[in-house]
């Protein structure tokens, strides 16, 4: 296969040869582009327009032509004609001529003004790129709208909850149970492992400092308070946001894409009642329990590390732990969990129901659900800290 070539042996003559195919055209592809400068000097001569007025293109040596080659050829010829030349193409095989006519067709069908100004395919005005002020305003209003619809969604969920309280037969116990298992029981290993490791890390970081002052036993205070008040609820919520919040969004989003949500609505079943409410309730029940589990494993991790690094035995550790950590500390940690759970489940379901279109949208909404849920959890935790410090808890 010879590469496509275009040459101009004489001012009035063009020679085409080789394979005018997507592969044969080689890099760049537009052979007429490289030809144009060569044609220019002849054009530039005084009285030259007459010289380019009649061009004979010899295509007898063209071996192959595909749609890409035909497009390049067509565009090139159009451009030459636009410069005022009359180009006659000779020696092209009949099959190739047909292909060339096919490329020409849309232009012929399209704008009637085409003969007057050909070779101006990109004449349509490109809308100017919006400036950064414009885009900032746009994304701000989008964010506000998003917040408003989220508020509407919370309202709908509250209405559904009120409806279920009024008609207890409408509770979806099976769905709630199923969600408790998938979001709660199945998450025990990962929550346990990560909080154990977190306890180890906290104790290890403390060990060096405490040993310096001979305050080894205070490792129990440090691990106990930090795990129970902050780390256990937070790490559990973040794991569940990544694990279950995303699962909620993806499940509901996929159902939206496959018309299942529409089908539910047309069957007279509220998606809020069947899908959203059981998830929120299940998570509000599950997350505090998981937090307790994380408390236990986290403190245990700290205990293991305290014995290995500081020589504080389990009995001493627990003895000190009971004195140092009040029930209030324990309850403030657990008390945050239902709020985190509501945030995670609501955002997961909300983003799932907002899914429109196809697989892309499911991925986007799932990502959003995780990011926004973790963001929401941390903001809520910060607000809790402020509130607790004001309340002296």
């Amino acid at each position, binding site marked *: 296969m010879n590469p496509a070539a275009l040459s101009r042996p004489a001012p009035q003559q063009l020679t085409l040869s080789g394979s005018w195919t997507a592969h044969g055209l080689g890099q760049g592809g537009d052979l007429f582009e490289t030809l144009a400068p060569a044609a220019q000097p002849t054009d530039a001569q005084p009285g030259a327009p007459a010289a380019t007025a009649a061009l004979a293109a010899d295509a007898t040596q063209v071996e192959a032509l595909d749609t890409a080659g035909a497009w390049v050829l067509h565009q090139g010829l159009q451009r030459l004609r636009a410069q005022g030349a009359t180009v006659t193409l000779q020696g092209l095989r009949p099959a190739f001529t047909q292909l060339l006519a096919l490329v020409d067709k849309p232009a012929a069908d399209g704008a009637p003004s085409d003969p007057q100004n050909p070779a101006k395919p990109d004449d349509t005005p490109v809308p100017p790129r919006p400036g950064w002020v414009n885009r900032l305003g746009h994304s701000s209003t989008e964010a506000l709208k998003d917040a408003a619809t989220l508020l509407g969604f919370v309202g709908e969920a509250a209405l559904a909850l009120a409806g279920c309280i009024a008609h207890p037969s409408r509770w979806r116990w099976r769905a709630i149970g199923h969600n408790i298992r998938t979001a709660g029981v199945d998450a025990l290993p990962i929550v346990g492992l990560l909080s154990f490791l977190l306890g180890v890390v906290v104790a290890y970081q403390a060990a060096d400092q405490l040993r310096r002052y001979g305050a080894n036993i205070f490792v129990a205070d440090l691990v106990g308070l930090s795990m129970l008040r902050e780390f256990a609820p937070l790490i559990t919520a973040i794991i569940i946001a990544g694990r279950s919040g995303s699962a909620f969004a993806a499940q509901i989003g*996929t*159902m939206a894409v*496959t*018309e*299942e949500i*529409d*089908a539910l*609505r*047309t*069957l*007279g*079943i509220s998606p809020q009642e069947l899908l959203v409410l059981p998830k929120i309730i299940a998570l509000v029940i599950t997350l505090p329990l998981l937090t307790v589990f994380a408390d236990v494993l986290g403190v245990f991790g700290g205990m293991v590390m305290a014995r290995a690094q500081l020589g504080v035995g389990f009995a001493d550790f627990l003895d000190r732990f009971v004195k140092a950590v009040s029930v209030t500390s324990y309850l403030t940690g657990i008390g945050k969990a239902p709020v985190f759970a509501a945030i995670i489940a609501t955002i997961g379901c909300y983003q799932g129901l907002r899914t429109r279109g196809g697989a892309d949208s499911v991925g986007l909404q799932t990502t959003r659900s995780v990011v926004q849920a973790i963001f929401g959890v941390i903001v809520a935790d910060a607000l809790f800290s402020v509130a607790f410090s004001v309340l002296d808890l």
Partner: protein
Amino acid sequence: MGTDIATRPDARTNVSADTGTGNGTGTGTGTDAVIELHQVATRFGEHMVHDGLDLTVRRAEIFALIGGSGSGKSTLLREMILLHRPDAGQIRVLGQDLLTLDAAQAVALCQRWGVMFQHGGLFGSLTVLENVGLPMREHTGLDDRLIDQIAAWKLGLAGLAPEVGALYPAELSGGMVKRAALARALALDPELLFLDEPTAGLDPVSATGVDTLVRQMRDLFGLTIVMITHDLDTLWQVADRVAVLADGKVQAVGSMAELAQRDEPAIRQFFDGPRGRAAQAGATAANPPRESSSTPR
């Protein structure tokens, strides 16, 4: 909620809209309207999808909506089944004004119609049998065992073998999905059935099977059927009346034979071209014998 549609007190009688051009080949007897759309307007942003659209669907007819892509057929269907709210106008379905329904009325109305979605809309987490039984489980106090039996019978009615009931939607072929979706749409013996592209993506044999099934359902239960379709064979063989949507309005309503006489370009596109002509020829040639092949397996 039976099939005693003739005795429903809330069915309004109706003076046929001006767009109607007769009942064509339809078997519909009365003039009472099941669906009435009046001056419906819908816009998406700047784009006007419906612009003062009027339409009437009569009882016990098979009514098809056609139109080019983007002509607003699907949106119109979604507006009729409470999935989308028009910006202006009035929609009455089964005698109820859709724009003023409260939640309880909407749930009640949903039980009087069945919808078959283009891709089935079957619940992926439930088996076919559970899918078909779901509407009964939700809205009736029937025994679980009884629901399963009725659902299995409905599957048979839709032409599916009993073994299919235990499969999940992902394990079904395209034609089986449509049949299962139809069985679910018929679960509560609706008065009104909406079909979104019932034969799209099916091989010709399955498509003919679905066509036959749709006609059988109408004849059996006196159902009113509204469908969106691009399938010219379905239009010729099944539809009693066809509405052509273009430019936000109903351009014409009538049987295919009547529409074939019109010469507006928006209508002509469904009759000209090789497919249109083949379907027309097939319809005129094969109309009587198709009845004999109508028994589902």
